[in-house]
């Protein structure tokens, strides 16, 4: 028989205003096994905790029940209290009489009655509790950052500066991400390359950072502190260690007709290429879809001219196995496809461009060398219409329901820079709302309107139609003057909604990290744990978690790094002892549990059993890897023979609670 102490918390007036706390402690003191019951204003305070410690020692308590707030709030606190008084921390049960009782009821009599019932259920459970001991697992002191954009770069640098090894896996041939494609950055208008490329060089030169470029994560096994990751290093047909990045091959390659993805297909590159001048690593890559040597076996020019002898047509994909203690997801975003928005004539006129394309057109390293020229005829545009919210805040199913957050600011930037460089250009911005919360953001937008004379019009563009004279007819509404406008524009720029990169969804499955319906990674707590995934050991950095601009991405990247450093600084991790275990005498080897386990914690082994008549039988039974098990309990529900049970939440304990409630 357990000796149980019951401690009822007032939580100031949070509980005491709706629940008669003395009646609860009085009623629970008569329950079987209860040797001590009391109530106190704040059980979680030092005085409250001392009451618990003293009672454990004085009455020799073997189990305690705390009637208080949710276990999410203070279970850890009270477990520590019990441990400090020499009681096994898993002999503590919490009856949630705040969130599940006092906060949701108004009537004191019913709330008190319910609080007593909840207390009785917890007492019934404690009777069946057994002391549990948490196991320790070592932490691999190396972090993996998936994605080499500004988010991944910043996270990697911060972790590496703290002295831990970091690997960056980037799927394209260079790190840098979307920021490397930008021209200027709002609201200070520094050149994106000028602030990004030094960071890329820092990454390349950091002795603690290793870059796996042109690589993807293939498989993830393991758990926090001990992830085993398989990385596929795609064949680039160039020996990275030998290539000097001289670029001679990229000038001589005869296959000139490959759309250049760095310039969003607005110009061409060769089949062997270096994405841009400041690429890191500055190593050439052969595009196997276009290389004539790889496709037909004829050519081989690059191999002949490469003085370093770096070309290797026989290169194969390489699989690399590596262990990590923590994984940071920084997979970033892409603009959405505009197939559902035919009214803007994006597919019909080359002069209708997305904002990212406009960014390339105005970039000195872009297809027009920074000259603002129309893609169709290479002439200076004199009237430019910017359309905001293209596909953002769209619940019709064509676009995305969320606000993409960055478009208001970059459109103000584009409009301002256009007026700055080409004052003879008329610039219109059609907006639904202008959203500029951020340091110096609203001032920036107002400057575009007031000092640069950008025409901001409240209303939406209904359609864009190419005209015979090469202009674009823009039909839009001006809601404030209540008229319909018809503008002959030379160019239309669409502030296209952004969406998480397509690689995020399969990656989330590999990591068992949760996502929302828009494929953004979910954080463990939207306010208090914004850079951690609910899955232990997985951290989030940048736009994979939600739309954000560069300053915010960099802050979040640093925050994620701090969390990783906190994890890697530990030598061992205490595992949750509330894990599944299988009674092998009852297990019938059906594999049901193995199939439902989301963590791959269950395996089957053939084991010898002595039978009653002195024979030996070999049976197939389930074995749980306690280090991998997260204690979700799916297996205990799936097991048809009742062999699988969860420590700390056994079937008998739950049934005892239910019985106590129904009595």
């Amino acid at each position, binding site marked *: 028989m357990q000796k149980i102490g019951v401690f009822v918390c007032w939580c100031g007036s949070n509980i005491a205003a709706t629940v008669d706390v003395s009646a609860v402690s009085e009623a629970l003191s008569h329950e079987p096994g209860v040797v001590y019951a009391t109530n106190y204003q704040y059980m979680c305070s030092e005085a409250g905790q001392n009451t618990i410690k003293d009672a454990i020692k004085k009455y020799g308590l073997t189990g305690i029940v705390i009637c208080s707030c949710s276990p999410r709030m203070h279970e850890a606190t009270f477990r520590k209290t019990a441990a400090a008084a020499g009681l096994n921390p898993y002999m503590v049960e919490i009856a949630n009489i705040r969130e599940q009782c006092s906060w949701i009821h108004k009537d004191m009599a019913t709330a008190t009655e319910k609080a007593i019932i909840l207390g009785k259920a917890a007492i019934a459970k404690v009777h069946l509790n057994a002391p549990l001991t948490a196991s320790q697992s070592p932490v691999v002191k190396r972090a993996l950052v998936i994605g080499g954009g500004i988010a991944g770069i910043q996270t990697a640098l911060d972790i590496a500066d703290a002295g831990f090894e970091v690997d960056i896996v980037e799927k394209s041939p260079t790190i840098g991400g979307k920021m490397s494609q930008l021209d200027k950055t709002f609201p200070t208008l520094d050149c994106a390359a000028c602030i990004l490329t030094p960071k890329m060089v820092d990454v390349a030169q950091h002795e603690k950072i290793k870059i796996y470029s042109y690589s993807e994560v293939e498989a993830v096994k393991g758990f926090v502190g001990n992830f085993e990751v398989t990385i596929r290093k795609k064949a680039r047909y160039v020996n990275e260690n030998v290539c000097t990045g001289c670029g001679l091959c990229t000038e001589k390659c005869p296959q000139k007709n490959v759309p250049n993805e760095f310039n969003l297909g607005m110009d061409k590159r060769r089949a062997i290429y270096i994405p841009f001048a400041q690429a890191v690593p500055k190593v050439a890559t052969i595009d196997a879809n276009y290389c004539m040597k790889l496709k037909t076996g004829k050519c081989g020019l690059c191999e002949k001219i490469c003085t370093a002898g770096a070309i290797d047509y026989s290169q194969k994909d390489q699989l690399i196995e590596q262990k990590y203690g923590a994984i940071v997801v920084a997979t970033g975003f892409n603009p959405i496809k505009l197939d559902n928005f035919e*009214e803007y004539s994006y597919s019909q006129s080359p002069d209708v461009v997305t904002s990212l394309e406009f960014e390339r057109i105005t970039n000195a390293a872009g297809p027009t060398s920074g000259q603002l020229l129309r893609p169709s005829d290479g002439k200076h545009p004199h009237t430019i219409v910017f359309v905001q*919210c293209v596909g953002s*805040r*769209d*619940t*019709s*199913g*064509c*676009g995305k329901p969320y606000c993409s957050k960055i478009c208001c600011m970059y459109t103000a930037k584009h409009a301002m820079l256009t007026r700055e460089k080409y004052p003879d250009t008329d610039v219109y911005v*059609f907006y*639904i709302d202008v959203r500029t919360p951020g340091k110096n953001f609203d001032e920036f937008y107002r400057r575009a309107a007031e000092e640069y004379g950008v025409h901001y019009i*409240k*209303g*939406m*563009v*209904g*359609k864009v139609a190419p005209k015979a004279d090469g202009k674009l007819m823009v*039909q*839009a*509404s*001006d*809601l404030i003057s*209540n008229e*319909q406008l018809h503008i002959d524009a030379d160019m239309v720029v669409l502030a296209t909604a952004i969406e998480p990169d397509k690689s995020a969804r399969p990656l989330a499955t590999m990591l068992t990290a949760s996502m929302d319906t828009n494929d953004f990674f979910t954080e463990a707590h939207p306010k208090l744990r914004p850079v951690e995934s609910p899955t232990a050991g997985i951290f989030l950095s940048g736009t994979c978690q939600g739309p954000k601009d560069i300053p915010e991405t960099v802050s979040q990247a640093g925050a994620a790094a701090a969390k990783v450093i906190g994890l890697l600084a530990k030598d061992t991790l205490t595992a949750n002892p509330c894990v599944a275990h299988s009674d092998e005498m009852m297990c019938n080897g059906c594999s049901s549990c193995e199939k439902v386990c989301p963590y791959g914690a269950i395996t089957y082994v053939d084991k010898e059993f002595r039978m009653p008549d002195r024979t030996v039988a070999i049976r197939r039974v389930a074995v749980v890897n306690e280090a991998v098990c997260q204690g979700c309990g799916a297996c205990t529900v799936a097991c048809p023979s009742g062999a699988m049970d969860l420590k700390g939440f056994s079937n008998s304990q739950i049934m005892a609670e239910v019985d106590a409630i129904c009595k």
Partner: protein
Amino acid sequence: MDNKEKQKERILRVSGVNVLKCMKCGKCSGTCPSYDEMDYHPHQFVYMVEKGEIEPLLKSKSIYKCLSCFACVERCPRGVEPAKIVEAIRLEVIRKQGENHLKPNQIPQLLDEDLPQQAIVSAFRKYSK
């Protein structure tokens, strides 16, 4: 519920439109090919129904200028369907025509030789209540 509110409820029910979904972007009016012919424009229909100001819309010539091309429905980012509101207002006008009443002393001048007796009885039954 006063008459104004009843009328609004009727428009909402008949059209099946939730006007509260509108985020006032004006894309409906930006896309409307009959915009210049209208006194009230598609986005105003949505907003005025939201405010319960149905009466001016009933008298508006816009309801006859709407082509029912459904471009506004197609392009609305929030799925509001303004054309269905215009349609509902048009229906409301047509239904109101049924409120014309027949009085017995008007009958003689409406009679003509070819009119069957039943038609007079039926019309009287329908329009005298």
